[in-house]
């Protein structure tokens, strides 16, 4: 069965979505992420959606859900590389994904997560003030 791989990078989980998301795949991903976080004790989840070109309200909610679930399990989620068209679509759908942190690139996202891990909450205040 088709599956989105969840990679482990130290204390982080790295998820790169490179296929068209359909609903079943999204639900499977939710299961995988939550399971991996509790199994490996990850503190951060990085979701790269730079290849995602089509988005609907379900996928938007799924992203928010993964972030929410990860937070409950003690991991911070960063969504990186959203395309302009995807961002506009989500806004037009009325989904602002509050609570999900975002970054321009994988690099910036890593910085955000590692900054959190090493310097505590200082970086978080900087970006959310």
């Amino acid at each position: 069965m088709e599956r989105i791989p969840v990679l482990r990078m130290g204390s982080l989980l790295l998820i790169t979505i490179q296929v068209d998301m359909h609903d079943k795949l999204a639900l499977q991903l939710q299961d995988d992420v939550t399971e991996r976080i509790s199994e490996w004790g990850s503190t951060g989840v990085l979701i790269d959606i730079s290849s995602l070109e089509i988005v609907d309200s379900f996928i938007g909610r799924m992203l928010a859900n993964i972030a929410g679930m990860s937070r409950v399990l003690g991991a911070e989620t960063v969504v990186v590389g959203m395309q302009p068209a995807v961002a506009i679509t989500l806004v037009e759908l009325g989904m602002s994904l509050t609570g999900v942190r975002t970054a321009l690139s994988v690099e910036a996202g890593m910085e955000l997560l590692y900054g959190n891990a090493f310097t505590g909450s200082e970086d978080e205040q900087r970006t959310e003030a």
Partner: protein
Amino acid sequence: MNDLAEIISQNEDKLRSEWIRTMSSAVERADLMSKAELDEQCGSLLKEIVDGVKTSGPENLGGAGWNGTRELLSAISASRARQGFSPTDVATFVLSLKQPLFVLIREKMGKNPDLLFDTVWSSTRLLDSLALITTEAYTSTREELIMRQQQELLELSTPVVKLWDGILALPIIGTLDSARTQVVMESLLQAVVATNSRYAIIDITGVPTVDTLVAQHLLKTITAARLMGAECIISGVRPQIAQTIVHLGINLEDVITKAKLSDAFALALQRSGRAVVKTAAAAAANPLSQLFGKREE
């Protein structure tokens, strides 16, 4: 009704000079076009009218015989609209043919009142319809002009400027409506991707009024930028606009707002871990700056 065509074609030169004289006394636009050009236009229009009356009759303006007249009139009106003539000038061009034509008709048919009346009536209707054609062509040319300018304005008014590595500025001039927000949003987000910028400053100094709709459009843009991982700062909020925002109860609490673009830029620099410092050379060149340096900061 070929009498009308005959009268016009037989006295063409006289009619033309009288026409131009009448027109000149009503509207003189020597600044916009030369006498020779006007003369030529009048001559070719008279020929077309004769042609139209002969083939389709003065009543049937939709007929094939009038195609030439309609095309010529539309072309003349369109070129006049572009040259800057007023609608009155353009309509007068055709309507001022009435007087010299009626004088001619009276000379020829003065002895037969019934025929005189019929001919005058049909030629009046004819010239009125022709004048309507010119007005229509004039208006549509003007509308095209306005549409094109609107389009150009839309493209002109949304530049995205790179202020520093990772800092963009988007000065918005004019009112933000839905169509413009779309353009602004798209160009900002494209620029964020292209320049990999973490901070975007939206400057609304040039936005005359901010109502709930404009604020909503701004918030949409900011949310979209946030989704991509860029942070937006609104700058250029004038005192009047700050008052309006509070009175309307618009919630801008999640958005960073600054009074001036420079304040926003300073904040963006600070957040990206940069600082602006005075060089030693500048301080040495102006000893006073050492005294006041601290205060300026």
